[in-house]
């Protein structure tokens, strides 16, 4: 048991170090793909840490991501970049805290609708502010930060999210979330503060999404509300996480990798049909592989071998 555990850690460290050398080989295509995979990987994994055990489907990823990107867009001229990352993370957590506290007491459906509306709401506010006070709709993000720096930042963030996931799995908080996912009435009858547990995790995923937006902002060069608050992003994250499987920490990344390649392909051959194909992909996943690829892998390779 402890030797397999050690092997897993060793493998994770090797993968991490190997990936860190990706920018060095100087292949722009692979660096671009690498950034996409890490970005979606981080977003989908942190999304699944909250939504996997609790079954609360959040469509707010774009709200946090856009918030983070805008913090950088607004502040890049006057504030030191690393400090902007801290501000974006803190604001993401704070927004999730407020929204979570107000909505997580509601039952599932209301939560889904509210989170979907949140990104649109923030987008409208920023558009309104910019139309009325700043004169221009978008902001330019001009920095000396290159793609390889963004890749490394995302890689570190991915490692942090994974370490948090590993910790969560064997923590009381993680156990509380599983009980909440099982039955919320039971949870409250065995001493679990379910609102607190849910808000904590929701804040974590909100902070991570905001930080991801802040890290990627320099890559966009020009930020506009309709770009960074796009609902497509929220749906993509949900679809990728479900495709991979949300009941395992490594599940979402298994969904992100094929989906990113598929997405590149779709964007190249049918750039106007992306939303339609996104919807079809969603239906196919929910209908044919509800447990995700992780579930399929476990079913095929570990058949019958895991009865304790």
């Amino acid at each position, binding site marked *: 048991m402890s030797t397999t555990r050690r092997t897993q850690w060793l493998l994770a460290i090797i993968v991490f170090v190997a990936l860190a050398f990706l920018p060095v080989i100087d292949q722009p295509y692979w660096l671009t793909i690498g950034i996409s995979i890490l970005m979606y990987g981080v977003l989908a994994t942190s999304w699944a840490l909250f939504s996997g055990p609790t079954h609360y489907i959040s469509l707010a990823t774009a709200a946090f991501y856009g918030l983070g990107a805008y913090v950088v867009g607004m502040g890049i001229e006057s504030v030191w970049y690393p400090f902007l990352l801290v501000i974006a993370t803190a604001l993401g957590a704070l927004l999730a805290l407020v929204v979570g506290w107000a909505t997580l007491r509601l039952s599932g459906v209301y939560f889904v609708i509210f989170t979907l509306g949140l990104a649109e709401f923030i987008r409208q506010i920023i558009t309104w502010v910019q139309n009325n006070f700043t004169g221009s709709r978008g902001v330019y993000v001009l920095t000396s930060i290159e793609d390889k720096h963004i890749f490394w930042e995302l890689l570190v963030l991915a490692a942090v999210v994974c370490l948090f996931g590993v910790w969560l799995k064997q923590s*009381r908080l993680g156990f509380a979330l599983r009980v909440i*996912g*099982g*039955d919320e009435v*039971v949870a409250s009858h065995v001493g679990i503060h379910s609102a607190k547990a849910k808000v904590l995790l929701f804040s974590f995923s909100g902070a991570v999404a905001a930080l991801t937006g802040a890290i990627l902002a320099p890559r966009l060069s020009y930020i506009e509300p309709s770009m960074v608050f796009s609902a497509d992003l929220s749906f993509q994250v949900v679809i990728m996480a479900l495709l991979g499987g949300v009941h395992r920490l490594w599940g979402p990344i298994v969904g992100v990798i094929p989906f990113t390649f598929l997405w590149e392909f779709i964007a190249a051959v049918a750039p106007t049909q992306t939303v339609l194909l996104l919807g079809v992909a969603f239906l196919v996943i929910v209908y044919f592989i509800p447990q995700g690829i992780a579930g399929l892998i476990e079913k095929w390779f570990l058949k019958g071998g895991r009865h*304790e």
Partner: protein
Amino acid sequence: MSDVVLEVSHVTKRFGGLVAVDDVSFTVKRAGVLGLIGPNGSGKTTMMNLITGAHQVTSGDIYFDDRLISELPSRKIFLRGVSRTFQLVKPLAGLTPAESVMAGIVFSRKPLWGREAVKAAERMLARVGLEGRGGAPLSSLTYIDQKRVELARALISDPTLLLLDEWLSGLNATELLEGIELIRSIAAEGTTIVLVEHLMDAVRELCQTSVVMNVGKVIAAGDTAAVLSHPEVINAYLGDTNDA
């Protein structure tokens, strides 16, 4: 420590126009088994939900160990020492039976975690007759076994007051005898029990005192044998002869 564990005082619960519990008062003495009985729809389960904070009272007060609990959320009432099972079993999907039982102790007033919590859960499973079944897939458990898991979950925190909502119903004859013995042994250890039950034989066997509800009201209370022969109670169960 006073002699009374639970005091329900003039409690009313309305759901819109429906009065599910109507000005109900009764007390539960320490270390006994009290039967809460009555026909379907008489408000017994609602009363249980009010005690554990699953519902909030419309008016009236509930005291546990001489402290007001009717304003508290379920979580805090549990932390004071009130545990329950549910009339409709609530299995926790995605958790093993051992983990389901563990859920009852991890966040309790005497919390355990890790190996100790697992051991306590296994001991409790053995006590309810599921020895060695802690890792079995949830789907392999029968309805009765799920009820056992739920009792173990309620019991593992060593509650002062245990509320059993029709826990014995659905058991076959042998299981019923085992179940009655089990509840008796829990009571013998000093846990106070409120038993909501339709099985009159079990109520007669286990409960020194009983409270009978009908259409939201208490119609009789006191010594079980006397209560069960009360004319109004017989009417409530068999129908008023004048109505027929």
